């Protein structure tokens, strides 16, 4: 009975999430194509390259201008038909949607990967490691830092460190990239101890160990900028979160019963606070996947944020769409898995759908 209820619940959530993703992806298609305007750019570009090709071809040189024009027009029309641009945008947008949802990301319009590939998949995969190394690491560091310091402070609230954290919490309204500028100023321009940006020294060291060290050196400032930016508010937030959980009535009741503090902490405070913490971590990790456009711009970090920015500037719709749809899939899958886990763990949900 319970299993059937759970399956029903997950199926329902799955369908809702899928439709959500469908709508979000379609909206992205509309915006990223400027409602069809990018087509005009692509067509103009196509025409220009065909003109160029015909005019350069010695076989056509003997033909008169009008005849050459006719050939150009002919090739152009064939190309348009081959690429499907003869259909109205609305119909094509549905085809884009189908391709995006089936993760058939296709080719970029204008961009190439560093290895020269036009495939969107390669462009994204090439930059993904750089982004994951930096932002997923810093997300994890921040998570554990805030969690443990928050827990510590919730036990020692009112202490001097606690007061310091509370009074400095507003410093977190300043985003990481902004702290990044200061860090570059201090550690590069002034002290000359750390590189201002980039992924690795030029030329890259041959020895893998030295290479890794060089990457690590380049990671220090961007990571530091995010750690500083999130620190006080993060610790403050998790401290308050634990404090709220530790003043619940059932905790008071457990204390009144005379249970040992260790037990109260693990079973009465940490356990019920686990779901929001896990959700926070999961969403944070997924969010870190897409990189950070502005931080990557400040530090010239060659991750997905810079690719996104370049794709937007080149009007390269397939790349923008590819990044968005992968993000949407990851997000939806995470939400669904979290739903499943909570469905198993949380008796209230089981009962509701049982």
């Amino acid at each position, binding site marked *: 009975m319970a299993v059937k209820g759970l399956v029903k619940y997950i199926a329902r959530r799955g369908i809702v999430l899928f439709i959500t993703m469908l709508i979000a992806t379609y909206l992205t298609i509309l915006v990223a194509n400027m409602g069809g305007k990018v087509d005009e750019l692509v067509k103009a570009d196509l025409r220009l390259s065909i003109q160029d090709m015909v005019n350069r071809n010695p076989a056509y040189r003997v033909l008169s201008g009008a005849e050459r024009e006719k050939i150009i027009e002919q090739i152009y029309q064939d190309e348009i038909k081959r690429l499907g641009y003869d259909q109205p945008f609305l119909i094509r947008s549905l085809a884009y949607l189908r391709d995006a949802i089936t993760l058939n990301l296709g080719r970029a319009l204008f961009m190439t990967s560093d290895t020269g590939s036009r495939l969107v998949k390669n462009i994204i995969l090439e930059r993904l490691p750089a982004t994951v190394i930096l932002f997923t690491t810093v997300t994890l560091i921040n998570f554990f830092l805030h969690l443990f310091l928050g827990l510590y402070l919730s036990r020692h609230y009112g202490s001097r460190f606690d007061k310091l954290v509370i009074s400095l919490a507003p410093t977190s*309204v300043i985003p990481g990239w902004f702290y990044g500028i200061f860090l570059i100023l201090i550690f590069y321009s002034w002290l000359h101890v750390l590189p201002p940006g980039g992924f690795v020294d030029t030329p890259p060291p041959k020895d893998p160990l030295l290479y890794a060290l060089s990457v690590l050196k380049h990671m220090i400032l961007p990571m530091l900028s995010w750690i500083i930016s999130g620190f006080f508010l993060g610790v403050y937030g998790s401290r308050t979160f634990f404090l709220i959980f530790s003043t619940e009535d059932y905790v008071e009741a457990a204390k009144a019963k005379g249970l040992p503090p260790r037990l109260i902490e693990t079973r009465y405070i940490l356990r019920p606070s686990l779901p929001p913490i896990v959700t926070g971590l999961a969403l944070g990790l997924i969010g870190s996947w897409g990189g950070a456009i502005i931080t990557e711009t400040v530090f010239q970090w060659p991750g997905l944020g810079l690719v996104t920015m370049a794709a937007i500037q080149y009007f390269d719709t397939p790349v923008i769409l590819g990044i968005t749809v992968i993000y949407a899939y990851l997000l939806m899958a995470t939400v669904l898995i979290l739903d499943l886990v909570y469905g198993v763990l949380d008796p209230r949900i089981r009962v509701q759908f049982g």
Partner: protein
Amino acid sequence: MGSAREGKVKSIVREALSYKSGAAGVGILIFLAALSIYAVIAIPYDEAIRMWRGQEAMWLDNPRTAAPEWIQFFSVKKLPKTIVLDSRTRSPYVSKAEVEMPGLNMKKVIIEFRFVYDFDELPSELNIFFFSNFSGAGAPLVTINWVKPSAETITMAKYGLRAPDDRLYVSISDSILRTLTNLYSEKYPVNTSERLTVLKLLFGKVDGASLESGEFEVEKGTYRLILEALVFGVQTSFDAKAVVYGTIHGPAGTDHLRRPLEIALLWGTPIALAFGLTASLLTTFIQLVIATVSGWYGGWVDSLIQRITEVNMVLPFLPFLIMISVFYKVDIWVILAVVIALSIFGGGIKSTRALVMQIKEYPYIEAARAYGASDFRVILLYIIPKILPPVIPGLVSAVPGYVFLEAALAFLGLGDPFLPTWGKILNDANTNGALYRGLYYWVLEPAAMLMLTSFAFAFLGFALDKIVNPRLREM
């Protein structure tokens, strides 16, 4: 009821001021508001745009990337300020004489500029601007002489005007550098350094050692720049302006286009405040209304709003915003509208909705329904006022986020195409390598303004939070 609420507002304000951080926040905000009003009155909107977009022509007398003048307080050296000498204005430092040549329809114009240079560093540039109304082939020929404090006289160039309003960029002229180098290397037979510049040779103490090392000490004293022009046609005018550009300028310094930064620093204030406050206010209130409607009506309205919220969560906020600003080249108010549109279905809705669900069951709402109050009345008069106070601190604390969002867009080069803003200064500084060239003021000034603004709102917001949500105060 009105007076009671006023009393409450007053007491909240008084309490907010009793917190040090709250008082500091309010103080800074008052200062920023005053600055905004001053900016808008002193430099009207169109004037600000004209001054900022007027490019170099408008600011020709300003040095490039000069630090603010107050830098002097931190320096033992006396830093050079800009010296402008113009033969069209009377001054004890400028003299002009015209000598007609009888029977030749020619004249000789001698302009002498005198100035005291007692700074410890070389100037950043030296330009001479010529103004003549000659036409056709009769371009004036100018002999440019330079007299150092030691009375050493150098003829640094003989120059024929190429246009009625011609400029001679003395400091970067190759031919002048060659002339000077040849002159001095005849006098001091040493291997001359590769690092000689026109300014070093004109303003430095030249001897064998300095020529060889390329390091010059400034020769202080009174310099004279004498222009002897041979002008064809008695009616033809001839005037000149010499500018010895310093390395410090004005209260905020200048950028790579010689524009004084204080224009953008001043005008950035009202823009940042207007953008941040409008975005935060509208987003918060619209979110409030949507959440209330969602919680109050329930059913399909509720599910629809919840689904839209979820779609909104999947949409990548910043890439969307960037796409729209890149594709449509929009101004700041359209960006503002897009920001609000993308934010109103944000995360705040869920918590407010939960609150509304609770309040819905309160007896006073039941009473209102019993006497036949409409949904509209209940929502607007009974529910929203109830959930408003806990939202206010969040509203205030959210302002910096929007201010930084605008700055971030401008930093990426996507902000408003016309208005001078803080983010734009940062963008200019970044693209011109301010941090790598040691031009720290260029980054630190807009950064300081951004931080001042965001801290003011953040500290005030946190103080309000403690007052409105007393549970936090105990913790």
